[in-house]
């Protein structure tokens, strides 16, 4: 496991540093807004599955969790037309940009990653883990056992529901059992990993990220590279928190549209109806 890349603004000129920090501030504000909007407490829009990881068991939750609702539909035995329509419509418009700009749990992981310590690069093969969790824990096991199995291990539920509820309502304390301690252990593991690796939950475990990742190649908002302006210096790749070489892997399933690579002129955020499938043609060869 190799050590992660250099600090994000090293090697950049002043103009690019200003652009980098400008975008970072904008994203921070957007993520903070996402955290507030999804936890407004007084406004209940729990009929709407908002496409971010935010537990509806949270006492403050505004929206329904799309993954929890999907498991409920499987348990209850109805085909979730409404849920899939909303989730896929969000994917077609935003791809995984909601992960990078709105998701409260992604925001918490980003904050944890800012703790100054030695950083590591997340092994890329582990990013297939999120498809495993989607297929097995969200679709197959809830179908077989008629229970929301992913919720039983979800660290978002532990953080937003599992910890606050026994504090607010003392009668819940008597229900604490082995599953509670398992969930706490998973949450502690994710917190520790988030300090060392960038967004480990999003890469290896998030079933919503797995669902939305299929749309990164053809979403209305997407990150594209202007091939003629790209010098293939790989500096953008060193800044990518997901470890993506964007000029070779446009529309990569792990791209969360954070735009840390946008400091370079060749990278742009495209807005509009897509006229091609990103990443189908490998037009550039890897240098060296």
């Amino acid at each position, binding site marked *: 496991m190799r050590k992660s890349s250099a600090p994000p603004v090293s090697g950049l000129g002043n103009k690019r540093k200003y652009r980098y920090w400008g975008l970072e501030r904008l994203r921070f504000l957007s993520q903070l807004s996402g955290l507030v909007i999804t936890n407004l407490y007084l406004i209940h829009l729990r009929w709407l599955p908002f496409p971010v990881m935010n537990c509806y068991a949270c006492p403050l939750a505004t929206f329904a969790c799309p993954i929890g609702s999907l498991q409920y539909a499987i348990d209850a035995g109805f085909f979730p*037309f409404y849920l899939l329509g909303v989730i896929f419509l969000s994917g077609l418009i935003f791809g995984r940009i909601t992960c990078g700009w709105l998701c409260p749990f992604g925001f918490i992981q980003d904050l944890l990653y800012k703790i100054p310590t030695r950083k590591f690069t997340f092994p890329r093969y582990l990013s297939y883990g999120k498809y495993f969790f989607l297929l097995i824990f969200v679709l197959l096991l809830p179908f077989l056992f008629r229970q929301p199995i992913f919720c039983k291990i979800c660290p978002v539920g532990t953080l937003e529901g599992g910890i606050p509820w026994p504090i607010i309502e003392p009668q819940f304390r008597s229900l604490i059992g082995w599953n509670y301690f398992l*969930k706490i252990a998973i949450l502690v593991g994710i917190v520790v990993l988030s300090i060392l690796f960038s967004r480990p939950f999003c890469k290896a475990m998030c079933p919503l990220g797995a669902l939305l990742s299929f749309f990164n190649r053809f979403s209305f908002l997407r990150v594209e590279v202007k091939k003629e302006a790209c010098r293939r210096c790989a500096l953008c790749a060193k800044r990518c928190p997901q470890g993506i070489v964007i000029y070779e892997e446009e529309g990569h399933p792990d791209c969360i549209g954070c735009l840390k690579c946008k400091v370079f002129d060749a990278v742009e955020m495209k807005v509009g109806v897509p006229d091609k499938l990103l990443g189908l043609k490998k037009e550039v060869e890897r240098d060296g």
Partner: protein
Amino acid sequence: MKVLYRLIWLFFVVVMIFLTAFGVKRGEWKKVKLNAEIICTSCIGLGK
């Protein structure tokens, strides 16, 4: 080819809007709301 891709994308958007509307008409949003308003003990790790 570009026009074809755009048309396919628009077709998918229309399909998803149709799916959402169909689900709303079947009252699925009420089921989602009811489920989300009950405190989910599985989510918070309590109970069996």
